[in-house]
């Protein structure tokens, strides 16, 4: 039963992901390199070196105490035999034995207390560290990683995989150690007491291992089937829940329900087989150990009658047969979980091994002070003007004023090899110019913006930003000099104010409100129940698409960088509202270099230059009037003679 719960909710692929989503089938994935994975896990736990030593000591004490305590039954019961019938037996021996036994047990319990408590520290602390490391690493991964992995996959790294990992940390590893110690200890003691009875135990052990193998093998097959059907059911659920409103509009509830029942029943069948095999293993193993117990009792008794064995030995040995099979049953039961957990850990480490965004670049962005003669010097003060700082070969800083000039020189780019999305693109945006990119989906408009802020790097040609190759600029500083408003507006849990402030964390309340006014968002915000302090839920579901876009524009307004990229930023805003925010947008764009991608041509009309893109190439360029005069593609698009999608 432990295996089934690893199937998390299948999640939808990211907004721009290639959509290779769908539910994942994973329960039977086996780890590739157990040793390496365990090694790395241990390395994490080494932060708790001393506590870890304590854990091991505790486990060993606790396990050995169990083994040793049981052994004392032998002298106790044998001793009793001698006293039977005596009038005033000398019980000091018994007392002494019991006292020692008590001490051992006390030690064992203490060990158990200590290791359980320490293990809690270690496991929660380690998990915290792994989670944080994963997250931090993830933040450094290139956009490409996000574009090639679904959110569901990444989420499952953090939920399912860490869950199982925690399981092995807090339970699996201690149990493994306990089992190994007590199996070894018990085995030695059994040999000491009676090699013949031990032989019986070994035979039973083989039978048990055989049963495990047989049942385990069968169950693996059914589990694969179950996972497949579970995937189908979960996929169907996801699709129909997401499209639930359409289902209702078309009154398809009944039909969809029937289809679901079919899948559901298929899953029930395969899952009941899989669960059966998982469910019968425990009782079979446990009762095999009773068979062993019965055998030991009978053979032991027979040996005792023949005078080959004393009763005390039987008593100890009987307890040992029980404590021998328990860890084996437990390990066999946990084995799949353990493997799944290791496979999960491996996936986690794989993710952490994915190379982060590289090439930080050496050119940085600094606050600049421009003196009257035009020389630029660096300052701590926020002057409102910025400069690129480059350290030349002599170690002397060199400053270039940040103006927002962008130049593409013969840029060629492909997301996948041999599938060029951009072909030999050259374009030039003078500081303060508005450049519009127009064209159908897949023409490469968004790719251009992806390259400017280095979500991706160009493969051929180069992009110059104020004359500096963008690859030489520190990524963070490069991005700080640009603001983006994307088509899919993402909001964060927090107040409206927090969400706008995301553009510049140190903005004052007044600045936030001013930015909202520029974006024309102030009106609807003040009509929200708590105004600027209204809490937005995760995806801002309580706002309309258009309102969310207005917030995103306000966010860019508050960042106030020299270059602005608007990728379908007003697509969900009606033209009238768009017209209303136009004045605000004009203010926002004033003096800035702006790249606009828009579907609606009315949005791009007053750009300084409009680039019409097709198949990764710029096929027409010019301002609105000149393009209309050209009577080319733009003219067709604009007059609605040609389809754009």
């Amino acid at each position, binding site marked *: 039963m432990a295996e089934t719960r690893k199937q998390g909710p299948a999640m939808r692929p990211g907004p721009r992901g290639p959509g290779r989503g769908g539910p994942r089938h994973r329960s039977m994935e086996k780890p590739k390199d157990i040793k390496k994975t365990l090694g790395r896990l241990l390395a994490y736990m080494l932060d708790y070196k001393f506590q870890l030593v304590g854990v091991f000591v505790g486990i060993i004490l606790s396990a050995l105490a169990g083994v040793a*305590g049981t052994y004392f039954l032998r002298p106790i019961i044998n001793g009793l035999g001698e006293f039977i019938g005596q009038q005033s037996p000398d019980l000091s021996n018994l007392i002494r034995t019991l006292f020692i*036994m008590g001490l051992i047990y006390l030690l064992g319990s203490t060990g158990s207390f200590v290791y359980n408590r320490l293990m809690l520290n270690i496991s929660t602390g380690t998990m915290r560290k792994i989670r944080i490391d994963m997250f931090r690493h993830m933040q450094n991964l290139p956009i490409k990683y996000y574009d090639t992995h679904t959110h569901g996959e990444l989420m499952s790294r953090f939920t399912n995989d860490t869950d199982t990992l925690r399981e092995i940390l807090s339970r699996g590893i201690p149990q493994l150690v306990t089992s190994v110690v007590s199996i070894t200890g018990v085995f030695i003691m059994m040999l000491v007491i009676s090699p013949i009875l031990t032989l019986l135990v070994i035979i039973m052990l083989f039978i048990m291992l055989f049963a495990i193998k047989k049942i385990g093998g069968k169950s693996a097959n059914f589990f694969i089937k179950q996972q497949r059907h579970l995937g189908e059911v979960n996929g169907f659920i996801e699709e129909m829940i997401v499209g639930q409103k359409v289902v209702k509009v*078309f009154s398809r509830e009944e039909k969809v329900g029937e289809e679901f029942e079919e899948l559901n029943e298929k899953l029930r069948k395969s899952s009941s087989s899989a669960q059966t095999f998982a469910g019968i293993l425990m009782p079979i193993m446990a009762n095999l150990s009773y068979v062993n117990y019965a055998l030991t009792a009978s053979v032991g008794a027979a040996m005792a009658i023949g005078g080959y064995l004393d009763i005390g030995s039987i008593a100890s040995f009987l307890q040992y047969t029980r*404590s021998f099979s328990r860890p084996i049953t437990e390990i066999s039961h946990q084995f799949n979980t353990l493997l799944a957990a290791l496979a999960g850990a491996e996936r986690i480490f794989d993710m952490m091994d994915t190379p982060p965004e590289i090439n930080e670049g050496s050119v940085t962005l600094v606050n600049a002070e421009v003196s009257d003669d035009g020389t630029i010097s660096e300052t701590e003060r926020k002057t409102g003007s910025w400069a690129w700082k480059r350290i030349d070969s002599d170690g002397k800083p060199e400053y270039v004023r940040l103006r927002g000039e962008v130049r593409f020189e013969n840029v060629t780019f492909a997301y996948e090899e041999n599938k060029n999305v951009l072909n030999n693109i050259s374009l030039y945006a003078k500081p303060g110019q508005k450049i519009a990119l127009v064209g159908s989906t897949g023409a490469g408009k968004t790719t251009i913006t992806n390259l400017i802020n280095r979500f991706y790097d160009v493969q051929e040609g180069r992009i110059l930003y104020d004359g500096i190759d963008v690859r030489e600029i520190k990524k963070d500083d490069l991005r700080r000099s640009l603001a983006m408003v994307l088509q899919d507006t993402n909001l964060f849990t927090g107040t409206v104010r927090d969400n706008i402030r995301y553009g510049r964390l140190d903005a004052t309340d007044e600045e936030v409100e001013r930015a909202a006014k520029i974006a024309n968002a102030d009106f609807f915000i003040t009509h929200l129940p708590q105004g600027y302090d209204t809490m937005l839920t995760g995806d801002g579901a309580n706002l309309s698409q258009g309102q969310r876009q207005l917030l995103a524009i306000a966010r860019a307004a508050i960042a106030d960088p020299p270059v602005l990229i608007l990728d379908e930023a007003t697509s969900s805003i009606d033209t009238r509202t768009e017209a209303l925010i136009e004045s605000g947008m004009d203010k926002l764009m004033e003096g800035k270099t702006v790249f606009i991608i828009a579907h609606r041509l009315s949005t791009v009309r007053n750009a300084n230059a409009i680039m019409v893109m097709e198949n990764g190439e710029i096929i027409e360029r010019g301002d609105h009037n000149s393009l209309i005069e050209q009577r080319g593609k733009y*003219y067709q698009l604009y007059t609605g003679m040609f389809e754009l999608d």
Partner: protein
Amino acid sequence: MIKKLIPCLGKYKIYAVLTPLCVVMEVALDVYIPILMGRIINIGIYGGGGISYVFKVGVLMILMALLAMCFGALSGRFAALASTGFASGIRSKVFSKIQAFSFSNVDKFSPASLITRLTTDVTYAQMALTTIIRIAVRAPFMLVLTTTMAIRINAKLSLVFLTVMPILAVVLAVIITKAYPLFIKMLGKFDKLNASLQENLAAIRVVKAFVRRDYENEKFTKAATDLQIAQKKAEKLFVLSMPFVQLGMYICMIAVSWFGGNLIIRGGMQTGDLMTFISYIGQILMSLMMISMSFVMIVMSKASVSRIVEVLDELPDISDEGADPELEVRDGSISFDNVSFSYAKDKSNLTLESVNLEIKSGETIGIIGGTGSAKTTLVQLIPRLYDVFDGSLRVGGRDVRDYKLNNLRSAVAMVLQKNELFSGTIRDNLRWGDENATYEELIAACKAASAHNFIMSFPDGYDTWLGQGGVNVSGGQKQRLCIARALLRNPKILILDDSTSAVDTATDLSIRQALRENRGDTTLIIIAQRISSVADADRIIVLDNGKINAVGTHEQLLSTNDIYREVFESQQKGVA
């Protein structure tokens, strides 16, 4: 809580009863085996029963162990049948419940949360049931039975059990009651962590574009630390339950050895009985450990179960109740009579206010209005996706609540603004509109929606496979497929809610022309952002802030309505 889900077992209820029965049998046999062992010692060795007695009882013991194994295996099988039947029952109930939901019910739960409830939460509920019918029956029964047998063997010595066990039980109970609320808190922190993670993933482009890595790291580190603290708090006590049980059992061991030893010496008990007692200690230890282990599982599942129950308890606020099953929509006339609507069902927070509107059957109506002016809200009332808050809405001369939903909605087709296609072929998707549509009908609808040409440009034509959500067609193509799908319903009223926003003006025009030519007396309602999409409508409604601002033809509105003129001008500027 899980009791509420019991009906989901359906016909598998029998297995949920058989499982504990088998468990009980298995436990009874397991408890009896040590007694036989005691007899072997007492009678076989000490009582002169000899080898033959030992052999006889030994075989009996082995047979009993094998029988117990059978019962155990059966309980495993039955538990599997019961729990998987249970899970399938829950899924089926929840799914059909969601089918019965109205839009406002759906709005209440986000899709993501509904999906979790139907997937992960069901798995947890399934585990909880397995735990309950197997472990939660086994452990207490084992405790009771071993204690009873112990009393029967030697009442005096059983006092040891009777003293230690209640103490342990109290300690465990205290730990569990103390830990429970902390566990719930911890689960809350878990949800928080996941939520912030999901947000970050969704917004990764924003995070990177604004270079907010450090800020996000800080946020996440805090969430992870909170979780760790909550986890430690919750489990701090809990991890002690196992050592406590161990300690208790050790004390039992020593006490049994001492008192039992004394009894034996005085002839009050036999050695075999002492050994039976000692075996029982092991069995009790196992049971108690199982109880404390299954606790975590039940707690974890409790939250899941209550989330499932929440869905099952949700009352669909739109149903067929009071509808006339025979009533069919007669024609496409629509009349709004003083209609108000509020998503929050709150008089002071109206989205639509006192709308009065008569639409004749066969009319073409355009609706224009700004973001948030309630255009979508207005039309969603017609197929009764939401119920009016105040006033009444009639379709075909009868209140929409008089029709069965099925009858109403098959007469009112709507193309939603946020539309979905489903995985399957184009043909499958179109058939949502009409199950029995012929190929010719499909083509006719697609031609009217200007979709036929692009469909034929795909190598597989109408059999082209669409991925989930229609990922492999463009936005404009998706919209046209959705229109074709709605056309196939052959509705009396067709509503297009901003359904051609991604389609260029020329195609938009040809779709509208085709609609006009073929639609007979279908009432057509078009919501659009582009004036050109509605300019040729019989009447255009200008909505502003939840109220009808003006109704009229394009020419009338252009000359009399400020809003309309503004919108028009905002779209005309600069046209050559």
